[in-house]
């Protein structure tokens, strides 16, 4: 088993674990942040699979813009009383 195989194994397990935790998290903001981390790991997977174009796009959109949209939805003055 080469170093690359071990890296892929660790990456895949981390992605699935992050996904499960994000789905089952108690607080909404936790699952949003974990989704952002999951997208970042997906970027590493894209780079391993030689797809630099997709990696750049996913890095900007998946971990940046989508998280921003979620945060703007969750943190408004009206929602403050709720468990965000």
């Amino acid at each position, binding site marked *: 088993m080469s170093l690359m195989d071990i890296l*892929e194994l660790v990456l895949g397990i981390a992605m699935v674990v992050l996904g499960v935790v*994000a789905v089952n998290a108690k607080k909404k903001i936790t*699952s949003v942040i974990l989704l952002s981390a999951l997208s970042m790991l997906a970027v590493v997977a894209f780079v391993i699979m030689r797809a630099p174009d997709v990696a750049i796009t996913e890095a900007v959109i998946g971990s940046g813009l*989508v998280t921003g949209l979620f945060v703007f939805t969750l943190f408004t003055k009206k929602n403050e009383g709720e468990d965000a």
Partner: protein
Amino acid sequence: MIQYFAIALMLVGVYGLLTQKNVIKLIVSLNIFEVGLNVFIISVGYVSGGIAPILTSQNNTSALLYVDPLPQALVLTSIVIGVGVTALALAFARRLHNQYGTYNLDEMEGE
């Protein structure tokens, strides 16, 4: 290797869509599904030992072994459509929250 985990990630997304009752959590599950699907499609075109499909001054001829460019082109557009879908879903969630004061689907039914 990554291919199996991508399928597992898609299944996690389906599980989230089946069990969650919170609108925000549903949208997060949809996004997890999408990430898994994108990684899977890219992995279909991967050739072991291939190089990224860009001609440069080092890799300067098309006779070299490249990975498949077509899945990458498809996923590139799919990611951008994904952000549009997520934005639309979040806009719906916000309207629901304005109307009912909650993100939970069960609590909305009473009114």
